[in-house]
């Protein structure tokens, strides 16, 4: 059990992430033919909620740089995750190697 603990936990995370994709179905387009959006970002939904509560509110500052398309945005998000994952991989690799070498050294001494 202990041996498979991490594997089970990782599978659980994947299951939690994938389940909604299967569970949520796109509902039929509204009467005016507009497509219903699903899996919209909650941050954007909060922005929409602001405009229903305070319709007269105008944002007073604009983003300095905006990704020119959804593709560029996903590139930058992937870059952010890639930098992080790259470091985590480096740490995991160097730490497991170090632990293994230490064990071998102790064995050689004994």
């Amino acid at each position, binding site marked *: 059990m202990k041996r498979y603990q991490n594997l089970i936990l990782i599978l659980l995370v994947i299951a939690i992430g994938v389940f909604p994709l299967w569970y949520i179905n796109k509902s039929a387009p509204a009467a005016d033919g507009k497509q219903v959006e699903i899996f919209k970002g909650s941050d954007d939904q909060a922005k929409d909620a602001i405009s229903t509560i305070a319709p007269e*509110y105008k944002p007073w500052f604009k983003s300095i740089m905006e990704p020119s398309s959804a593709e560029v945005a996903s590139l930058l998000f992937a870059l*952010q995750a890639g930098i992080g994952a790259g470091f985590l991989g480096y740490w995991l690799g160097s730490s497991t190697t170090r632990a293994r070498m230490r064990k071998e050294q102790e064995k050689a001494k004994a």
Partner: protein
Amino acid sequence: MHIMEGFLPVKHAIGWSVAAAPFVGYGLYTINKRVKQNPEQRMLLGVAAAFTFVLSALKIPSVTGSCSHPTGTGLGAVLFGPSAMAPIGAIVLLFQALLLAHGGITTLGANVFSMAILGPWVAWLVFRLSRSARLPFGPSVFLAASLADMATYITTAFQLAIAFPDPMGGILASFAKFAGVFALTQIPLAICEGILSVIVMNALMKLNQDEMTNLESFKAQEIKA
């Protein structure tokens, strides 16, 4: 939890920035001190920062039919105490505000406050409480990270509620509305964040024992546990 650029009234934007700045400053000071005293802990700091980078970039679908992302700040708060996470979270949020138009400069203070200050403090408190209640190590890490994630989003809902009170029901009605957007969606993601934090923590305990024994937030009994 990102409040979009310009979507906080000027007074609120300034207020949250003023509130967040000392935490970030003090956090930088503690990180500097830590790296000077225990240079070997740089690797652990890197892991905490990298974890935040990855997790806050992952937008994961939720059962409510919308997407949201974890924060990744709970793990580092459990390792180093809450102060160290303020500058680390601020760097991530600044990256996203400048390059991704996700969040913003004017809302940076508010976003830092929810993700990089309040979340980590909740993580640290929950971890301490769970350990004094003699909860095992793994479940304590899980609770700390997932409740920190939830707390971050609830803070955002609160920040938006006091900035945009409902004309009829006031702050409370508005809070219910924003929390409705954030909280339910976030529950499965908070569980994911808790699990991922446990996985990384398990690896740290196994591979970096020596560095971990020098963490003051973790006295000897935790390492053995």
